[in-house]
């Protein structure tokens, strides 16, 4: 049996297990391949080398970057690509390159550079998950890095101003979404009926774009006009992340919102109360049927166990 694996990544919101594309990619791949990951939503970047998230920790190996983590999982025999032909494997690589070159700049821009989105959504969200002194510094650093990447890879003559670069990267991103939509067509996943690496990457890039509520949503609006890509995201969310919540693996812990946890606790308390009342009632007659009480207690214990599983 392989050593336990622990994944540290940014937590979730807006119905997503993680709002961070790279984290989401790894989580989706782990689901597809059946790798038993323990997911930790991080609130502390000290542990991550160079602030790189997500990281996978297995015994004494620490791996960052999604591509490397996926390779590691494949070596541990958690492979979602068994059924792919060599040509499909090549296609996977090509489409991942397409996503990185064409969609990633606009995604970074929507999250980290677009001032309104950054100030009202991204910055408060990340700052609230980072402990105090760092919360003042890290979001700004991440924003500067994103802008830097966009300008260095896409800027330069003849695009001198940021608005011109923005126009170009959004045009590229929309074209990329159209290409993905045409490639997916009406099939459930990119290569037939089983999800593979490419599906994990596409899901990781698209789902945050699709679900996170930003004030400026030009790319989201475009995505919502492509029903097959939206359905693709919804399907993966409902089949691979909701089911996991009620299963034994706590990987999708973040999708369980606080309300559900409170409800569980309430139900537990209530059942305890009822049991106590039952006990009192039974104790009141002169000859308490002891056997029955133990039976009742055992039944009560079993009843609450599936509920307990819900709360991580």
């Amino acid at each position: 049996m392989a050593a336990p694996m622990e994944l540290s990544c940014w937590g979730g919101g807006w119905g997503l297990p993680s709002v961070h594309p790279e984290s989401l990619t790894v989580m989706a791949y782990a689901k597809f391949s059946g790798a038993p990951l323990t997911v930790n939503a991080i609130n502390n970047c000290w542990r991550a080398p160079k602030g790189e998230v997500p990281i996978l920790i297995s015994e004494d190996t620490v791996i960052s970057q999604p591509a490397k983590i996926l390779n590691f999982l494949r070596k541990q025999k958690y492979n979602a690509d068994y059924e792919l032909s060599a040509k499909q494997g090549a296609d996977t690589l090509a489409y991942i390159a397409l996503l990185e070159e064409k969609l990633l700049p606009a995604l970074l821009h929507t999250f980290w550079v677009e001032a309104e989105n950054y100030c009202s959504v991204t910055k408060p969200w990340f700052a609230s998950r980072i402990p105090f002194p760092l919360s003042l510094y890290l979001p700004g650093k991440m924003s500067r890095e994103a802008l830097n990447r966009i300008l260095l890879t896409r800027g330069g003559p003849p695009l001198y101003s940021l608005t011109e670069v923005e126009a170009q990267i959004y045009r590229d991103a929309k074209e990329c979404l159209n290409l993905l939509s045409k490639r997916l067509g009406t099939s459930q996943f990119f290569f037939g009926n089983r999800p593979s690496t490419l599906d994990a990457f596409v899901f990781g890039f698209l789902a945050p774009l699709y679900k996170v509520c930003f004030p400026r949503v030009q790319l989201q609006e475009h995505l919502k006009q492509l029903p097959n890509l939206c359905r693709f995201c919804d399907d993966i969310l409902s089949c691979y992340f909701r089911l996991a919540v009620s299963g034994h693996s706590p990987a999708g812990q973040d999708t369980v919102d606080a309300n559900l946890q409170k409800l569980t606790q309430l139900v537990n308390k209530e059942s305890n109360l009822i049991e106590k009342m039952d006990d009192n009632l039974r104790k009141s007659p002169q000859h308490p049927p002891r056997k029955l009480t133990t039976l009742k207690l055992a039944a009560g214990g079993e009843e609450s166990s599936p509920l307990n599983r819900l709360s991580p």
Partner: protein
Amino acid sequence: MALAAEAFMTQLAAAEPWPENAALYQQLKDEQILLSDNASSLAVQAFLQMCNLPVRVVCRANAEYMSPSGKVPFIHVGNQVVSELGPIVQFVKAKGHSLSDGLDEVQKAEMKAYMELVNNMLLTAELYLQWCDDVTVEEITHLRYGSPYPWPLNRILSYQKQWEIRRKMKAIGWAGKSLEQVLEDVDQCCQALSQRLGTQPYFFNKQCKGLTFQYRRLVPKIRPTELDALVFGHLFTILTTQLTSDELSEKVKNYSNLIAFCRRIEQQYFEGHDKDSSSSATSRSAKRSLLR
């Protein structure tokens, strides 16, 4: 210039036919041009040859500074100047020449994905090798890049360029990679290209549409696309360029179908087409001997 205005100019140009005196500019072939620029230039030349559009190759020491995007190659057609393969493909398409018209939507998506794979992996690896690998930088890049300029300027310009490329590598997360990792990436990319190509002559085979175009130009039934031009440009340049070590070309040589692919395009589109660019014919024949 605003993008809208640029698009408008492209529209204006669309009506004009392809002139006889179209020119492609790049750096000096023998003493200056670097691996990545040569690959990009060869890709554009191959693309134009495949479209059957004649172009004269002009070598200028300051080609990089003449280009509107600061990148070579660029073409000068009529009163238009367009640089880099992507925009050139668009420009040529506006003039009514296209290699990818016969593809269906999914094939077009696939073609674009593979083109990004080549840019994302091969081009970045070439840039890494020539600007971040210390041995190559010292022995080849600095000498060649600054060769047309006098002493202090040659050093200043090449350090400036090196700094720019290293910042870019840092931003995309390649700065921390070792040469071995980069070569592994190249291998992975070549493997993907090789598997995609299989035993076909070109990357996309089904080209039954576009009959009117075929009828007009009498081109063969199976035609290459811009992806073939791009892959040819990079692989041929990698195979035929002498570097400090041949680790890079060895990676490509492992895939026999890719080598056959390069040879096929070279024979079909470059042999016997060199009349108007005789200066490059000699170097090309030298390259050919290297390939064999």
